[in-house]
């Protein structure tokens, strides 16, 4: 039996496939500063993604419920250092604008006067009048409030001589601990990632972020794998899901294809236009191998990329124990 607290989904495979951001542009994967301007829709063999900087899909209610439960159990996943109050409001305001622009049928932001707004989120039945910058006009801390309405994880980077991860709500971390990392610099947070420092990748990414301008968002993708449809694979819960990485080698092929998921993060990088902080939106997608295999170009490329991935990268991504079996499973699925 896989770890507890995986969220079973009743969502049809076709809907999971339609918005899936397949992350491999080539037959070989290495870390790179793979940023590009945001907002250009990417057409895939089975759908489209990337039209907006926020993405609401059929998992909206389930993932928000998951987030609420995680925050109840572990409040350390939400942090706003004292000097980040303005950035938290800025993030809330920016996300309301983005939601209203991307989903006008169910999200509306109306200006009532100077700094006075009315926000409507029909999907959650929220009607909220608020005053920008006035904490007493929201039912909870602004970043937490807006994080309760988007599927993205949010990290706010304060810009000083370098960027520092000084605020965020991160409930769906892939093998890191936001609660521990709060307050660390961007370079420190990425300390443990192999190869990227000597190759200068992280320094270039950091310099790029320092020069981001308001109203010109960028995006990039990141990927790993997860056993079970489980969003919270943070360091905090590692004892709950860690042994799945060995247990998965004991199951039959049908179970393997159902349990092993390709996990993709679409990250949007946004210079907030009031506080000047950099907002990282991290949107996580999970697709089981058995669904991935139904799209032939995806099946074939994923088999090649995962099979070729060097051991140190596979180890850092946490997939080394089942890397070979995954590549073999995908190969076999094509015959």
């Amino acid at each position, binding site marked *: 039996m896989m770890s507890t607290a995986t969220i079973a989904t009743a969502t049809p495979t076709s809907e999971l496939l339609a918005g899936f951001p397949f992350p491999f542009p080539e037959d070989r994967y290495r870390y790179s500063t793979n940023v590009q301007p945001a907002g250009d829709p990417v057409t895939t063999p089975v759908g489209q993604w990337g039209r907006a900087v926020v993405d609401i899909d059929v998992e909206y209610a389930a993932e928000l419920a998951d987030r609420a439960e995680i925050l109840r159990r572990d409040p350390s996943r939400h942090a706003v250092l004292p000097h980040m109050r303005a950035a938290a409001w800025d993030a809330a305001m920016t996300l309301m604008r983005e939601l209203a622009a991307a989903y006008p049928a169910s999200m509306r932001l109306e200006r009532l006067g100077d700094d006075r707004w009315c926000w409507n989120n029909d999907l959650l039945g929220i009607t909220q009048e608020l005053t920008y910058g006035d904490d007493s006009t929201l039912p909870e801390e602004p970043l937490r409030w807006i994080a309760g309405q988007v599927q993205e994880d949010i990290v706010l980077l304060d810009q000083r001589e370098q960027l520092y991860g000084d605020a965020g709500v991160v409930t769906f971390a892939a093998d890191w601990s936001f609660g*521990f990392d709060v307050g660390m610099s961007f370079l420190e947070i990425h*300390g*443990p990632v192999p190869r990227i420092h000597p190759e200068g990748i992280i320094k270039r990414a950091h310099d790029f972020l320092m020069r981001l301008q308001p109203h010109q968002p960028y995006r990039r993708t990141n990927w790993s794998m997860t056993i079970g449809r489980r969003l919270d694979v943070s360091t905090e819960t590692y004892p709950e899901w*860690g042994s799945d990485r060995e247990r998965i080698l004991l199951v039959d092929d049908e179970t393997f294809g159902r349990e092993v998921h390709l996990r993709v993060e679409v990250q949007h990088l946004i210079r907030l236009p009031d506080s000047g902080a950099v907002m990282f939106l991290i949107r996580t997608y999970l697709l089981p191998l058995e669904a991935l295999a139904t799209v032939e170009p995806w099946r074939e490329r994923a088999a090649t990329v995962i099979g070729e991935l060097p051991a140190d990268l596979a180890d850092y991504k946490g997939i080394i124990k089942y890397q070979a079996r995954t590549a073999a499973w995908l190969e076999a699925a094509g015959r």
Partner: protein
Amino acid sequence: MTDLAHTSVPGWALPGPAGAAEPAETAGDVVAELSGVRLAGPADDVATRLVNALAHAHVGVRLTLTGPAGGCLTVRAAALRAGLEDDELTVTATGPGVIDLYCSHCRETSRVEAGIADVVPCPVCDRSLLVYHHVSRRRGAYLGFQVDAETLPPAAAQAPCQEVAP
């Protein structure tokens, strides 16, 4: 072996030859010098007194810290919280000693005698923690996570699992 030079562990806290600095009178103590004012003692004590001193200080001050790596991390964390920037402080570590270890599972911080890559039991929740090469400047602590989280218990490793996930 990971190239520790590019991690979040400050250079002065890396394992290696002890800094050639004058140690405090009492082993384990940290010495803080804030533009001529000298504070010496256990790390937590120095941290508190330093924060009080900084509340009355002006821009232009410089802070030097000398002591075991763990104690320096503790005092540095307090100095950063009080508003000092990296280019206002210099640290010289005199060797290993006790460190603050953050257990990511029970989320408690404990003071233990250990170094990077050691495995120690969490004094609060008893999990076996790997002392990871990841330091929080804000907490002055190392990250610890369960070293054997991926290891199957022996019984489970024998029988192939056929139950389906929930």
